[in-house]
């Protein structure tokens, strides 16, 4: 087991955003988390990344309890997140964004991974000196993903990578996610686009009002009547 949470909860002030979350992600797996607006998906990723402190329960990574670890130490361990809304450093150049992605790595590792990122997304190489904020939405999402890859993640957390993108680009992003997974990256994918996420996932969880209500393999969840009704609009 690469990642496991047990009884994890999180509060914003008095409001409980997550309760008793038990999820696991195994090495090499692609696990999807789907849920409606405000279910707590982003909060869960923020708690796993150490941005929001847990108010109860624990997070294990690679057999170690990391509940108290700082966000920067978690990145060093290999937990890397592509946040909701991309959150690129808009005024800085594309290449600076990527180099900062490798902040926790050695200079040699940075140079090497940068080459890989440029190979994967040639458009980023073409625009490497442009301010990141001038890229199109799809390019910004590619930049955000490449920036995360620069940290050489052992576990990649993706928060709604398809949000706000045209259908064609959505397909491209999902193709990239699949490709990453095939190359051996462990991925925890959060999506409102439940159909596409569950279709490529090994396993999935359904989050409702801060709690996990369903957990199963991707195909089984896709066939589940409750899921169909609530998230697939069928």
């Amino acid at each position, binding site marked *: 087991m690469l990642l496991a949470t047990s009884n994890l909860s999180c509060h914003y002030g008095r409001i409980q955003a997550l309760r008793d979350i038990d999820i696991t992600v195994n090495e090499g797996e692609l696990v999807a988390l789907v849920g409606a607006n405000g279910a707590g998906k982003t909060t869960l990723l923020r708690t796993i990344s150490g941005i929001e402190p847990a108010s109860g329960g624990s997070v294990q990574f690679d057999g170690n309890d990391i509940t108290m670890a700082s966000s920067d130490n978690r990145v060093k361990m290999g937990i890397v997140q592509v946040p909701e809304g991309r959150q690129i450093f808009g*005024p*800085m150049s594309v290449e600076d964004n990527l180099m900062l992605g490798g902040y926790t790595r050695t200079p040699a590792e940075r140079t090497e991974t940068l080459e890989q990122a440029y190979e994967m997304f040639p458009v980023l190489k073409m625009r490497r000196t442009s301010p990141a904020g001038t890229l199109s939405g799809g390019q910004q999402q590619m930049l955000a993903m490449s920036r995360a890859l620069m940290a050489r993640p052992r576990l990649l957390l993706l928060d709604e990578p398809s949000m706000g993108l045209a259908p064609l680009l959505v397909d491209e992003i999902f193709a990239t996610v699949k490709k990453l997974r095939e190359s051996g990256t462990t991925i925890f994918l959060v999506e409102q686009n439940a159909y596409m996420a569950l279709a490529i996932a090994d396993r999935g969880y359904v989050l409702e009002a801060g709690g996990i209500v369903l957990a199963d393999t991707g195909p089984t969840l896709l066939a589940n009547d409750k899921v169909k009704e609530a998230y697939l609009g069928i």
Partner: protein
Amino acid sequence: MFAEFLQFLFSGITVGAIYALVGLGFAIIYNASHVINFAQGEFVMLGGMNTVFFISVGMPMPVAMLLAVVVTIFIGLALEKFAIEPARDASIVTLIIITIGASIFLRGAAQVIWGRNFHSLKPISGNDPVMIGGAAVLPQSLWVLGCTIVIVIALMFFFNRTLVGKAIVASAHNPLAARLVGINPRFIMLLSFGLSAMLGGIAGILIAPISLAYPGVGIMLGLKGFCAAILGGLGNPMGAIIAGLIVGISEAVTAGYISSAYKDAVAFIIILGVLFFKPSGLFGVRGTERV
């Protein structure tokens, strides 16, 4: 006529360069934390006073200056570590009040340790003025200008060319994304206070031969530097530098043509004007950089 104007211009640029360094210190800490560090002027005082002190115990001038900067940096780091960081979950206003407390404390401590006296510091290259276009310029003015230019270039290199410098810039633009790439926000804060203290300390050493060194010297210099930071658009380092020069020159021209009694009023009229007409400063960036 022109020589006279040139004379005012040079003295304005000299003191303006000091305001620029102090304003830069405000901008760096503001960018890292949105805190306005009112102890910035005391860093200036510490630079000058420590140099005077180290020379008085028999150290050669260059060593005394270097040590003074190092001591000031350590005090800046200590301020962050022991006063700001423990309160980092408090509101910005609370943190600003802490820096005001720190400035009073540092001034008091300086009075206790070194007394209330004024100390003079020998200029680096003597007192014989250089004639430029009919104006007499003190060699110390050239030191102030030269050092300021070197520091600004070094800082530009640091922020634009080194990864740590870029990490500071990135943290200012998007603190969440900065944390998610593994930048430790506490390290950035510490670094910012260290950098600002260094700038203040250097400014204090450079200006001491002109302004004298005494425990209260940082009050006015700090306020003028703050004025430069506001005029330049809070958090805009380049703006603070240009605004520092503008404040310095306006002051010198006012003192020269009207009366030196109104000199200090200029900076405050500028602050009021900015707050009234253009609160984002002359070079203020739009407040919506975050996506």
